[in-house]
């Protein structure tokens, strides 16, 4: 019988079929952070259970960690410090690998896992974080869970998993100059809506996707959850294989093992006759740089367009919150803050894109611009490439890694009324700070906003060069 890639991954990882809708799904890797895991460990201790396979679990301090460029990072907030020390104690007790506060390689879970070879095609990867969909970029099924399920994962390395439907999104055509994977995924979310993929695992395909780097594919799969998707997948190809070889020295150095792995990865594609419950087709040729105007990631528009008319009460509420009026151009709206980072856009290619746009320009007067690399390795790489020095000279704050202002759980919080051009994934009300306004966009667009002080079509800056 013909199968989708999603069904192949689920079937391969099914330990027991529990009923028509649920399987006991085996996880190759379980990632944890400091804030969605404490109650899971506590539950485990109450039951007197231990972690079944500690080596297939990993934890990082990412959400509450301050990102000031101090040599030694100290978490000042008492509760947050307790979360970090609690995570360390739990990891030590259970023998779980940890990327702690001052670890050279610490970073956001979804940045450090692939960069250190922990994500490989054909895996199931689960984490108490909704952006775990990221790993579909390497042909691994990733998805987020709650804390009760984190406990279940620790105790059994499995999850009671409700099967999702199959959706395919095909995108063909070359990305126009000045547009990126971020613009692409924001366009898709705007078209299908914030619950357009609810109930489905989305397989992305088409010539546009094929031409993307793995880091760009991470961005696409990462944000699929903002359309409600329960997972995102891209069939692994030669690009994926190159990424894996660069990041998995154990495989790259073992020809026999690699040959076996490659043989199994060749099967990781949907069969030609496989049936999808829903299919969408988009053309990348129409794409312009996208920016969000509202408080949901699907409230997004080309930067060249006028702010749309409200379709319903939620739109009206969003326009009011964002301080925008229907019919006004979005380009030219002043920003006071620029945030570059997050699991969506905190990787080296993102920082290179920022550096390219900034060139010799300076951060505009009155703008506070912050770069928070996704991991210690990304930060070091950017320093080696001269990106850090260039951005510091331009007036950017060069921070240490963490989730930072993406969700503002640490001390990087925007003041009420502050408008922020942000490379993150959610423009929810209050997400970056109570009363603060978030405009989601690509790293290149955020860089353009930083140097002009307003929402700006990045293509106008690229033409000047």
């Amino acid at each position: 019988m013909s199968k989708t890639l999603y069904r192949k991954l689920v079937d391969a990882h099914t330990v027991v079929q529990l009923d028509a809708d649920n399987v006991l799904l085996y996880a190759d890797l379980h990632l944890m952070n400091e804030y969605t895991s404490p109650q899971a460990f506590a539950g485990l201790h109450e039951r007197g259970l231990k972690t079944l396979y500690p080596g297939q679990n990993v934890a990082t301090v990412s959400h509450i960690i301050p990102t000031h460029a101090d040599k030694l990072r100290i978490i000042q907030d008492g509760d947050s410090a307790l979360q970090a020390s609690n995570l360390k104690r739990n990891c030590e007790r259970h023998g779980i690998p940890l990327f702690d506060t001052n670890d050279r390689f610490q970073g956001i879970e979804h940045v450090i896992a692939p960069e250190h070879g922990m994500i490989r095609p054909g895996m199931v990867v689960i984490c108490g974080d909704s952006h775990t969909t990221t790993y579909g970029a390497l042909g691994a099924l990733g998805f987020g869970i709650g804390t009760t399920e984190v406990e279940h994962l620790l105790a059994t390395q499995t999850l009671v998993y409700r099967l999702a439907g199959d959706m395919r999104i095909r995108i063909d055509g070359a990305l126009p100059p000045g547009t990126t994977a971020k613009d692409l995924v924001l366009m898709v979310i705007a078209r299908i809506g914030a619950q357009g993929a609810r109930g489905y695992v989305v397989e992305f395909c088409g010539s546009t996707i094929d031409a993307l780097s793995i880091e760009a594919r991470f961005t696409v799969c990462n944000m699929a959850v903002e359309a409600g998707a329960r997972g995102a997948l891209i069939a692994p190809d030669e690009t994926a294989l190159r990424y894996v070889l660069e990041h998995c020295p154990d495989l790259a150095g073992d020809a026999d093992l690699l040959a076996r792995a490659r043989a199994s990865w060749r099967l990781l594609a949907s069969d030609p006759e496989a049936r999808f419950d829903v299919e969408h087709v988009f053309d990348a040729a129409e794409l312009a740089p996208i920016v969000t105007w509202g408080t949901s990631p699907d409230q997004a528009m080309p930067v060249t367009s006028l702010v749309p008319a409200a379709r319903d009460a939620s739109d009206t509420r969003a326009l009011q919150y964002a301080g925008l009026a229907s019919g006004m151009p979005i380009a030219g709206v002043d920003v006071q803050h620029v945030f570059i980072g997050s699991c969506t856009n905190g990787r080296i290619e993102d920082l290179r894109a920022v550096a390219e746009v900034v060139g010799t320009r300076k951060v505009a007067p009155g703008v506070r611009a912050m770069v928070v690399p996704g991991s210690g390795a990304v930060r070091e790489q950017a320093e080696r490439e001269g990106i850090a020095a260039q951005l510091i000279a331009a007036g950017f704050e060069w921070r240490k890694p963490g989730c930072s202002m993406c969700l503002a759980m640490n001390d990087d919080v925007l003041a009420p009324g502050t408008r922020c051009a942000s490379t993150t994934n959610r423009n929810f009300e209050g997400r970056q700070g109570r009363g603060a306004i978030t405009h989601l966009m690509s790293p290149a667009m955020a860089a353009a906003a930083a140097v002009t002080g307003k929402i700006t079509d990045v293509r106008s800056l690229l033409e000047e060069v």
Partner: protein
Amino acid sequence: MKHTIIEGVAAPLPIANLDTDQIMPKQFLRGIDKAGLDRGVFYDLRFDAAGKPRADFVLNQPACAHGPILLGGANFGCGSSREHAVWGLQQFGVKAVVASSFGEIFYSNAMNNGLMLATVPPAYMEQMFAQEGPLQLRIDVERLEVTSVIGTARFTLSERHRRMFMDGLDMLGASLLHLPAIEAFATKWREDNPWLADVAARARARLDGQAA
């Protein structure tokens, strides 16, 4: 058998895509236990910047405050996976949420904690939102029916979730009975796919070797 009827005042929150960041804002996520989350529920909607209750917010109106049921907009609970949103709602006194759709992770989290979610047709929600004044609602979990002055709407619940809610089925306890099958699966899987085994421990060991 557990209570199967949830009945009382339903507070309308007709906001689409009401995300878990709004249900439980970031500053309430710093604990290592589940205590005190009732304070955080809808914090920015319930209180103004000075910490005073906002009189115009439905849960601050005496008729609706601390009712057992919320009426949510489409895609209620989308966004972040934080289970704190569910714990907080329950501590606040919410026993059920009725909406036309729910965020997926929120749905699982709710089921794992016994917070009943009833998915009813959008038209039924629209009619309830159009009503003046507080609405009385009755949710019959056994019959899978929501009843109000509008009439009765049916909702679905998987057999697994029904047993978890009605019989208090312990999901982890049930899964632990499968441990022998899990261990057999893992042994074979590791033999067949050795490059996928212990990736975390091996990455950590390699990095530690690099740093040394």
